[in-house]
């Protein structure tokens, strides 16, 4: 179980500014799948980076299975079983996909495991194992490799930051299926930051993040009913204004 208590984050730099995440309180349970949604710039990635330790909370506490991890570094948290699939994964000249996956999954990862990981994210193993993670990869390919690097691990808490970005529609179905399987087959806490209804559908609970505020998780049915109501005559995906309206709804209730 991962617990955030009164976590705030203000980036270092030029003088006092408003926190980009203020007084976040959250309880994320084992075996549940949470989807975080909300407008761009609302603080979703900041929340994920605080959980991973990439950003350090200015105040508050982060607790994993009863252990206070607030002061632990990124690699220490990783070794405790926290993982984060970056919204914008970095590229590495000279590092191959195979090597990255072996770094992620450890020595237990053999050739066949690497192949099946790549297949799970819709990449043909033969074409990708020896590819370098450099600028010759497209944005969508990079996102899939990032996803595979998290699926390679045995995690307690896995956070995926907009995994659908740059992925075509057909693969997107496959992607949703992959998350569904992961949820069924593991007891991990799964957190997916997403704007896509198909991903929202997978959620046990949905968490809205907007204006640096983290709302209490609500059941999927409750949230989707609101979204469907309001968007009945629009297309199926919530737009940014749509989400603002939902945030308004949750604030009022």
């Amino acid at each position, binding site marked *: 179980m991962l617990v955030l208590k009164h976590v705030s984050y203000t980036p270092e730099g030029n003088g006092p500014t408003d926190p980009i995440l203020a007084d976040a309180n959250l309880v994320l349970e084992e075996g549940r799948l949470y989807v975080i949604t909300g407008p761009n710039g609302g603080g979703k990635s900041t929340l994920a980076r605080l959980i991973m330790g990439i950003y350090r909370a200015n105040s508050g506490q982060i607790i994993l299975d009863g252990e206070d991890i607030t002061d632990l570094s990124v690699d220490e948290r990783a070794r405790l079983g926290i*993982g984060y699939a970056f919204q*914008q994964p970095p590229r590495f000249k000279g590092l191959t996909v195979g090597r990255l996956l072996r770094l992620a999954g450890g020595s237990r990862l053999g050739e066949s495991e690497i192949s099946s990981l790549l297949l799970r994210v819709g990449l043909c193993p033969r074409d990708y194992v020896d590819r370098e993670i450099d600028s010759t990869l497209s944005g969508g390919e990079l996102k899939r490799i990032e996803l595979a690097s998290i699926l390679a691990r045995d995690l307690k808490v896995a956070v995926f930051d907009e995994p659908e970005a740059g992925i075509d529609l057909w693969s997107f179905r496959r992607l949703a299926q992959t998350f569904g399987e992961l949820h069924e087959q593991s007891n991990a806490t799964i957190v997916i930051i997403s704007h896509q209804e198909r991903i929202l559908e997978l959620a046990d609970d949905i968490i809205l993040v907007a204006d640096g505020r983290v709302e209490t998780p609500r059941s999927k049915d409750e949230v989707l009913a609101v979204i469907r109501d309001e968007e009945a005559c629009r297309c199926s995906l919530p737009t940014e204004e749509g989400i603002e309206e939902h945030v308004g709804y949750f604030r009022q209730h």
Partner: protein
Amino acid sequence: MSDTLGSIDRRLLDEIASLHSIPQGAHNIRKNGKGISRNSTANIEITPKADKPGIDVVIRPGTVNESVHIPVILSESGLTDVVYNTFEVGERSDVLIVAGCGIHNSGLSDSRHDGVHEFIVRKGAHMRYVEKHYGEGQGRRILNPVTVVHIEENASAELELVQIRGVDSTDRETRISLAKGARIVITERLLTSGDQVAESRITIDLNGEDSTAQVISRSVAKDRSQQVFYFTLNGRNRCRGHVQCDSIVMDQSHVQSIPEVGAYHSEAQLIHEAAIGRIAGEQLLKLMSLGLTEEEAEATILEGFLA
């Protein structure tokens, strides 16, 4: 013959040529300024030069899948070794030449090797040339190689120039001339640390019609080390040339990359790309988020970059 090689010599040979003993095929092993083992084969003849230190290597036309090893090792402190080697790679042949210099300097005075290598790659031939430099010990190790390659019509060469550890000072000069339809690919890898200094100049003259040149240079500078790169492409005909150089700077190191691109023909297409910067913070964070410590993450990034 192998009893002339001690354990230090074997380690040096392993580092520069992945050799654990005297090779079977064509070779010339030079130790502390003297040839200690030489072997010619039916197609590859190696003879010492009459007028100065060094060898002539003549590869007969049509020789394929053969290799020549010409490592140099210096294990005596305070030695300056200058050597001139000339290679003729016969028409239509396809060979691998492995050179390199390993220095073990346990003394107080400088150990220095200046190797001048000249190659003529004849019509339609292909040569792969691998040169590794390595140094160890307390004394200063200095390497100043000059490599000159003439590539004739429709011939090609691949040069792999690697200096990863232990050379205190290097001044490397590489000059290439390309005839009609000739091709060159140069891969350069350089790592400096401590107070090491390295200079590399690569000059390519694309003289012939449809000649092509590609240079992929990657380097890492650590501590207070300094590197300067000069790349010169001269397009004198319809030709294509592309230089990509990337450097990672760390600590208090300095790296300069100085391009010179000259077109002397309206159909010369020349590109120079250069990027210098430190390891991206996101790269370190990504690997740390997989459980690697910061040091392990850094080593992994550098190892991949210089592979």
